[in-house]
């Protein structure tokens, strides 16, 4: 269904870097010269998970005549912000830098992407906010990039891809979570793979369809990693937002981890209460791609997870997840819609809450997610 009122907060849309030439002003002399010397100064640096021609990478009516989907601010304003009456939208730039093996090049490109999004998008469009793209190849460089960007309140989250070198709960990533917690930045984990590993425990599937479907499994294994490693116990202010993850698999995860925890808790003693409770306190999910059939099934799933606070609105623009303006599932109550569109995003993102409060004192402040 269409959005019933204006003022929604879109927690996942995707401006795209046209090609690396657009980043040149945000790279230093060394990297400009280096990229051009290697003849990669017009290379796309596009993730294979989101190759521009793939059907899911852009809706037909959102596909530009030429160039990369999502690269045009005017089109994004018209098709995503104005079309849905959006109050704030979080830009997640899915850039190939994170798939490189050279951590220095990755860090330089991430820094350039963050500079580019701030100057060319956030400066021009007050409704936009952005996630900080960090190079997970090198934790120190990732932390340095968070520290560099965090003073700008328009950066509201840290962005990671769900499939990288190792499960993201691992201790080696903890400095990122420490820095994020310190600055009140949720950790946004987005679908996509650097293909360091085969997408399944039994190797490489043949079809794009399979890669796409199996993103959900990667999110499950990632969430179990965060639980088992004790990230939420170590950094109790952590908020985790799973983006483009789907949601219908969550009941299974809660039920299975609640049961297995009883058997394995001596191995993971930092999990001091049922995992389902930990997830409800710390983890949120963007709406699209909405992977539950319309009808009463969604309400059953929401009942199964026993919370109406877990879903935050997203259009996933310009990715193709729905047609027309039907960005919402059918048959949700008005109260639930208000939660998904406004209350849950504000409760999740402290920096959006601050911006909203500053702009409009009438919007109620909600308690932060439990600590």
């Amino acid at each position: 269904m269409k959005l019933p009122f204006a003022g929604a907060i879109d927690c996942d849309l995707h401006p795209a870097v046209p090609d690396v030439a657009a980043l040149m002003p945000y790279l230093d002399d060394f990297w400009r010269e280096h990229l051009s010397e290697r003849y990669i100064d017009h290379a796309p640096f596009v993730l294979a998970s989101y190759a521009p021609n793939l059907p899911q990478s852009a809706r037909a009516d959102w596909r530009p005549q030429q160039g990369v989907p999502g690269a045009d601010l005017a089109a994004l304003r018209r098709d995503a912000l104005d079309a849905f009456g959006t109050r704030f939208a979080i830009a997640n730039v899915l850039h190939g830098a994170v798939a490189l093996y050279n951590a220095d090049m990755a860090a330089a490109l991430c820094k350039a992407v963050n500079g580019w999004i701030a100057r060319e998008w956030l400066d021009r469009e007050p409704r936009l906010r952005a996630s900080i793209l960090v190079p997970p190849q090198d934790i120190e460089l990732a932390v340095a990039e968070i520290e560099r960007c965090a003073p700008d309140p328009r950066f509201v989250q840290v962005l990671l891809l769900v499939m990288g070198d190792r499960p993201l709960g691992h201790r080696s990533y903890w400095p990122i979570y420490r820095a994020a917690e310190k600055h009140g930045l949720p950790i946004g984990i987005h679908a996509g793979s650097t293909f360091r590993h085969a997408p399944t425990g039994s190797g490489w599937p043949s079809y794009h369809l399979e890669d796409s479907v199996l993103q959900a499994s990667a999110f499950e294994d990632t969430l179990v990693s965060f639980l088992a490693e004790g990230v939420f116990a170590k950094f109790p202010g952590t908020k985790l937002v799973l983006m483009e993850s789907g949601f219908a698999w969550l009941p299974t995860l809660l039920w299975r981890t609640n049961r297995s925890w009883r058997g394995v808790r001596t191995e993971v003693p930092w999990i001091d209460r049922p995992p389902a409770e930990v997830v409800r306190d710390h983890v949120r999910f963007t709406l699209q791609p909405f992977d539950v059939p319309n009808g009463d099934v969604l309400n059953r799933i929401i009942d199964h997870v026993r919370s109406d606070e877990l879903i935050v609105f997203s259009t996933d623009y310009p990715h193709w997840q729905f047609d027309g303006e039907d960005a919402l599932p059918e048959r949700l109550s008005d109260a639930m819609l208000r939660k998904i569109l406004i209350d849950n995003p504000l409760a999740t993102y402290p920096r959006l809450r601050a911006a909203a409060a500053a702009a409009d004192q009438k919007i109620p402040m909600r308690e932060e997610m439990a600590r």
Partner: protein
Amino acid sequence: MNKPVPERETRAAQRLGFVDCDIHPVQRSPKDLYPYLEARWREHSETFGGHLCQGLSGQLSFPRMMANGMRADAYPSNGGPPGCDLELMQRQHLDLNGCDTGMMVCLSRGGMEERNLEFGAALSHAVNDWQIHDWVEKDRRLKAGIVVSQEHPEFAVREIDARAAEHEAFRQVIISPRSSEPLGRRKYWPIYEAIARNNLVLGLHPAGAPGGHPSSGTGWGTYYMQEHYTFGTGIAGNVVSLITEGVFERFPGLKVALIESGFSWAPSLGWRMDKQWAHMRNETPHLKRPPSEYLRQHFWFCTQPMEEPEEPAHLHDVLDWIGWDRLMFSSDYPHWDFDDPRQALSFKMTEAQRAGILRDNATALYRLA
């Protein structure tokens, strides 16, 4: 978990009469297989032993929790690992709980994960002999699963044809879901052709040893808690592969039992496949129907480890979505997370639904009547 079941209470209980779709017999030592191995492979076993895709020898790289992953009370008093002693299995489970039929799933030493393919084939062949002579012939309640290495389809096809002709106790074929390629890939199709030709079932059970890839697309976990979770996501990857590659268009009679892999994930996987397929169907023109329809038609699920929602009634929704005719009881005897047939189905259901899960669904799938 792993608390002893009080014997008085269960003895007094009514005889259930059920099919147990996951029982794990094991050799007391590798020597149990020697009568069924040629001298060459006995020597190979003594000199070299197994050759697997993992860093530890003689144990799993994700050590199991209590009692090495076994019911502590299932260790035989005369030595050997749990599951090696038929008399104890009878006393502790088959007789005590009133089991009518037990489907044996032989995991270790079956050659499924062995890197030396010829040694793997010899081990599979020996384990299949051993199942008949050391178990089925001593207790007719037990049914066997033909163990073959999926990485050696030429051997697998020969073995499946021979065993199916040899003994009626062989009701399914067990291969490892930790395969070198996703199980829908063409390499494995001769195995499915042989299974369909012989009217058997394909049984998939999570394997202990990996097949050359990390347990998840995110890489290797740290804790057994994570490894345990991949039993479900790993199987889901193979389900997606079997469906997407068109295995069920090519072999429309093929039936798959997913053992110890969970079941509540199946509806959401079906919905997700259908949604993505709607946008990408040109990539797989060999699929004639939405992917969830193949899932609904060709797959069966086992109960253990029983899903435990915070509100037990929520399982009703799940069963309505996957089909009450598709879930089969399994105990996982003698493993540590054994489910008791009296306690595992604790949510409300009709007597017919309970009978279906405990007995009738497996009876129909494995043609046990």
